């Protein structure tokens, strides 16, 4: 108790990230501080998940440069640090997109992550809401320098609901933390080491738990996908709506996003915040149970609240959803008031995603004609 009081009386820490100064509570990580600013200043995170204790530090995409450790000790940190696991100090100066070292290292990490990742986005269910896709889009290079055979894994069946596609995995360990922290017994983990490390049950057993489905939502790539939704539709053709139901499971929050087409419920997921993480309600992450996720696939099972607001810098936010909230742009602030020069407008280059076409207003799936008719 004495500890808590002490914490509250502690003054907030001033931290400067990419020329933007904010105040945060002591103990906040650099990444979470950057998230309060939002926009381009926030480092990407592939393995960190604020709702999962112990996650982070592994993927190295969130590396940032600390130009000054604190007011008391203004020496810079010798190496780039993982912003998701480094807490801020008062007077810390952090460089993310304003540091060439960071950009160089991040481009390296993206290349490493994509080295053995199959670029099978056209047939991957995660496409459109894949964090690796976003990362590659924002920070990647146009081609790979890897000229050897890519790593593949044998398919493994882990039960009727979840599809494990190990070849796509980037070993963020998030799903193991879900199993550790949400379910009563973890039945899967990492086997083997190095390049051959794989997510697996020991050995080839099914994962059977009421909350195992949340693994799908935390997976940043298409390594864990929903078997009941597999190959049924592309995410950008379905319309997300917020819905809830009174779930009998006391640990299930019952608040979900339904992905609809017409009146048909194609998929049920947790509601996600702008960082692609599950939303919290009263400080409690809104995980959902497998019954809600896999079995309630009719609109009568649900009370529909309205269209989901999508506010993410992501491939999916290109989808012209109804209720799309464009995330705040910080680049002008970072550049000290100057406007950036736009090098390329996507609409000058590409026929898809015409600004005049609104997917949510279409009856039925979009088709290449939809875009061509605009001409």
């Amino acid at each position, binding site marked *: 108790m004495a500890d808590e009081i002490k914490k509250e009386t502690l003054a907030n820490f001033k931290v400067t990230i990419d020329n933007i100064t904010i105040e945060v509570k002591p103990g906040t990580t650099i990444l979470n501080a950057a998230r309060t600013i939002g926009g381009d200043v926030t480092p990407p995170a592939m393995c960190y998940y604020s709702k999962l204790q112990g996650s982070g530090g592994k993927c190295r995409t969130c590396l940032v440069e600390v130009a000054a450790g604190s007011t008391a000790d203004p020496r810079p940190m010798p190496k780039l640090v993982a912003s998701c696991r480094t807490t801020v100090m008062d007077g810390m100066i952090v460089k993310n997109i304003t540091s060439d070292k960071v950009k160089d290292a991040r481009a390296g990490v993206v290349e490493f992550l994509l080295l053995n990742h199959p670029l099978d986005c056209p047939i991957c269910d995660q496409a459109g809401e894949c964090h690796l896709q976003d990362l590659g889009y924002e920070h990647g290079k146009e081609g790979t320098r890897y000229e050897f055979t890519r790593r593949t894994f044998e398919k493994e069946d882990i039960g009727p609901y979840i599809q494990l596609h190990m070849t796509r995995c980037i070993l963020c*360990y998030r799903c193991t933390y879900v199993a550790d922290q949400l379910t009563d017994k973890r039945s899967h983990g990492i086997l083997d080491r*190095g*390049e051959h490390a794989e997510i697996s049950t020991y050995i080839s057993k099914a994962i059977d738990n009421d909350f195992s489905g949340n693994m799908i939502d935390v997976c940043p790539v298409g390594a864990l996908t929903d078997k009941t939704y597999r190959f049924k539709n592309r995410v950008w053709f379905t319309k997300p709506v917020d819905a809830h139901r009174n779930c009998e499971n006391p640990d299930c929050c019952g608040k979900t996003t339904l992905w609809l087409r017409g009146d048909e419920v194609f998929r049920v997921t947790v509601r996600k915040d702008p960082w692609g993480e599950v939303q919290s309600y009263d400080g409690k992450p809104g995980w959902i149970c497998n019954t809600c996720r896999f079995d309630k696939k009719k609109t009568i099972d649900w009370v529909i609240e309205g269209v989901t607001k999508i506010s993410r810098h992501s491939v999916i936010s290109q989808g012209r959803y109804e209720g799309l909230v464009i995330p705040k742009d910080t680049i002008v602030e970072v550049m000290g008031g100057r406007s950036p020069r736009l090098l390329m407008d996507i609409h000058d280059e590409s026929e898809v995603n015409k600004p005049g076409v609104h997917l949510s207003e279409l009856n039925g799936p979009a088709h290449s004609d939809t875009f061509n008719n605009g001409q």
Partner: protein
Amino acid sequence: MAKKLLLDKADVSGIRTYEVYRREGGYRSVEKALKMSTADIVEEVKKSGLRGRGGAGFPTGMKWSFLAKPEGIARYLVCNADESEPGTFKDRYLMEFIPHLLIEGMIVASFALGSNNSYIYIRGEYAWITDILETAIAEARQNGFLGKNILGSGFDCEMYVQRGAGAYICGEETALIESLEGKRGNPRIKPPFPAIKGLWDCPTVVNNVETLAAVVPIINEGGEEYAKIGVGKSTGTKLISACGNINKPGIFEIDMTISVEEFIFSDEYCGGIPNGKRLKACIPGGSSVPILPANLLLTTAKGEKRLMNYESLSDGGFATGSMMGSGGFIVLDEDQCVVRNTMTLARFYHHESCGQCSPCREGTGWMERILKKIENGKGEMKDIDLLWDIQRKIEGNTICPLGDAAAWPVAAAIRHFRDEFEWHVLNPEKCLTENFGLRHYADPIHVPVTA
């Protein structure tokens, strides 16, 4: 003959047993230390200037004084005997032939740090040494040096030997702690450092075998006496495990004042290179430190003689120097191929990467494949630059030092032996049957005279 502190009794017959070890003056340091205050012991070790013998060379006394000492929370001492660095086998010798020296050092260190349960985490492949150590621990307990109320001082200490399962990564201190706790040996993200949160989230000190053994002469003779041996910040004696193209491979205890040239060519140590071959290159401190060509190995870039100590070996930084590392001294003669050597090392790091963070997991395999390509005469010039770029992107961007350890050998090989790599690319058929040879690698370095 240089003064020996660790191995002076190594040749006494039966030194492995308690009776002989005790007769030869063993366990004197425990008797002395238990009468001292713990702060005085730490002060003695600080005065000695002892640096960690595992590779990083961090001052041991400093490490000990960093240990957090919260009330009512246990503290642990863990001995890192997971000696898996290619070229390093000094701890094996120490534990196999003088196990009581390690145990004696550990009792003193446990007392100084307040560790009532101390662990020796030993490499899985050293199966027979586990038995030797356990026998020695049992002997020490029988004679009252372990267990409850040691020598009537009121200090309790138990010691356990835990075998690893054969992973190099478990030599990294936080991975070692994870493995010791029974988990997968993945390095932890630092901070918090083990001195604050280590084994079972309690303050922990992890020390190398040789470091803990060196505590014995420090207590016996006093820290200041110990510091008189050696030069500058390289105090005391160091065990070097020499191997490769030399006449007398094995373990040597050196005081750190001799030159590299003397170490390789004198009969007291390595005894020169067999079959009249010439020296081409050397990895002076275990596989992960940068390789040096003969000319830079024997003299620094400033033209001074290079000595076998921490400062001199790292003189010139990575541009023209290397590191003392763990003391695995690997000598390559003129018939050795640096490309092949680098490929072997890259294969090792690829095999041993834990796979937790992406640069090391993906990068080590990539480097090995490219090196294999070059070694097999299928390389292109751009591959050399690509290798450089990959190592640059691994180094410093990983959770633990294994990423750096994988990057440095490749970086140094390209830095100093780039023409050998290029020769492999330009002579794709010749490189399969012939070696590049010595060429200019032993030529004297031109040192411009200051006006």
